[in-house]
């Protein structure tokens, strides 16, 4: 599947300043695009728009030429920068993990998710442990495009390398497209097929 953002502009209301202006971007099947821009530039806003959480003020986001579905499972999935804010604090981890599909045990073992953690509350896990849940829970075969917004800064480098290697394997196997937002140059060079700078 191909994701295309056409001349996207965004602002919160008619009086506020533009957060994004005329951003165009396309992600082909099997492509991994790095998105680079300084802090506070609107990368996360762009990620939210691409995944359909936010409507652009101007322009459109198309998947295979059609608008993103407003009902049911969206084939474009977003992994957030702050795992502690993206899980329901009143759900045990098991419920969060199985919300959209049931990941098999092999995947959980590969991601380093302990069985004992499933019965814990989010506040009882570290940032890195939570992020592994957030990644595992969206790796359903229905996900065609993955938007990764600084997903590995809270992981140690070994876990980072493990998680990225798993993600890359799955992306290659399913020919998934990916957008990767990161500040780590060395990481971007390792995982992306090309990079786009938003500030020209």
């Amino acid at each position, binding site marked *: 599947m191909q994701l295309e953002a056409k001349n996207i502009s965004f602002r919160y209301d008619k009086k506020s300043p533009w957060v994004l202006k005329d951003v165009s971007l396309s992600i082909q099947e099997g492509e991994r695009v790095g998105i680079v*821009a*300084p*802090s*506070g*530039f*609107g*990368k*996360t806003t762009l990620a939210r728009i691409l995944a359909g959480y936010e409507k652009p003020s101007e322009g459109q986001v198309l998947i295979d030429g059609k608008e993103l579905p407003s009902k049911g499972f969206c084939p474009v999935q977003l992994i957030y*920068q*702050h795992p*502690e*804010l993206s899980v329901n604090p009143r759900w045990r981890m098991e419920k969060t993990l199985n919300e959209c599909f049931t990941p098999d045990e092999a995947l959980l073992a590969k991601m*380093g998710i*302990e069985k*004992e953690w499933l019965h814990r509350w989010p506040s009882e*896990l*570290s*940032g*890195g*442990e939570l992020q592994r849940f957030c990644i595992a829970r969206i790796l359903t075969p229905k996900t065609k495009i993955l938007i990764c917004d*600084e997903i590995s*800064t*809270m*992981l*140690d*480098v*070994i*876990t*980072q*390398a*493990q998680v*990225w*290697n798993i993600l890359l394997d799955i992306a290659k196997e399913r020919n998934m497209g990916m957008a990767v937002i990161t*500040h*780590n*140059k*060395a*990481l971007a*060079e*390792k995982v992306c097929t090309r990079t786009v700078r938003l500030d020209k």
Partner: protein
Amino acid sequence: MGKTLLNVEDLVVAFSMYRGDSLKKENLEVIHSLSLDVKEGEILAVVGSSGSGKSILASAVLDLLPKNAVVSGKITYDGKPLSMKTTPDLYGKEISFIPQSVDYLDPLMKVGKQVQGVKGSKARQEELFEKYRLGKDTEKKYPFQLSGGMARRVLISGAVMGNPKLIIADEPTPGLDLELAMETLKHFRTLADQGTGILMITHDIDLALNVADRIAVFYAGTIVEIASTQDFLSGRDALRHPYTKALYDALPQNGFKPIPGAQPYAGSLPSGCLFADRCPYRDDACAGAQPEREVRGGKVRCAHAT
């Protein structure tokens, strides 16, 4: 280098919790006999696996652990025992904290007011916002209107508001672009050169190497190695513990090769070396307890380190 500012000796932290279907509470030990010290004018970087208890160490030093935590060992600041009961005035003045999570910000309060707090001044807040390149309009914004990097800079501004002597920084740089992250760390270095001690918890080893004096490597709730920054810069052979070497190899610029496996779960720790099941040099000597010993000027918990 000056006198010892923060000293942690034999710290053990356990959480009392229910496990499985049992109705009896059990203690889950998450930090085991940990010792470290931060001197005046020094930056000690703490790196290591996620979930190894780095943030718990920060909370223990700041006396912010939840009620079900059982703590033993000694934490002293400037030679005096440190706790909310005995030394409440130190927190927020001489000792400040940069939390890891941006949800430490009050969602219902404009960030300018939050940074000023009760002890700060508006002038100092404006000076700091300018230093961290937060625009004039930022002080009137609420946390939800900030990007990840901006929120991080707001947290840092709040922590350096009152010229603290000891800063505990839990992941101060994620979300910042390289230039800003470097600038922030250089600011830490300047603070340290003026005598502040900094305990910096981070995953970004590359960045930490630019400013830190020593690096402590955490694994499964204890420190497996304390090495000088120079050892990391000279390459993997200068490092002592196999886990530290594995960390080095996993950096994107050094091959991006992860070792298999995961760190042992706090509820089922092996009796000997904590790293043994993933270690390429494992043998009989690894089955016993691994006391801390001095090797080439650094400290390490490994029977094979030379």
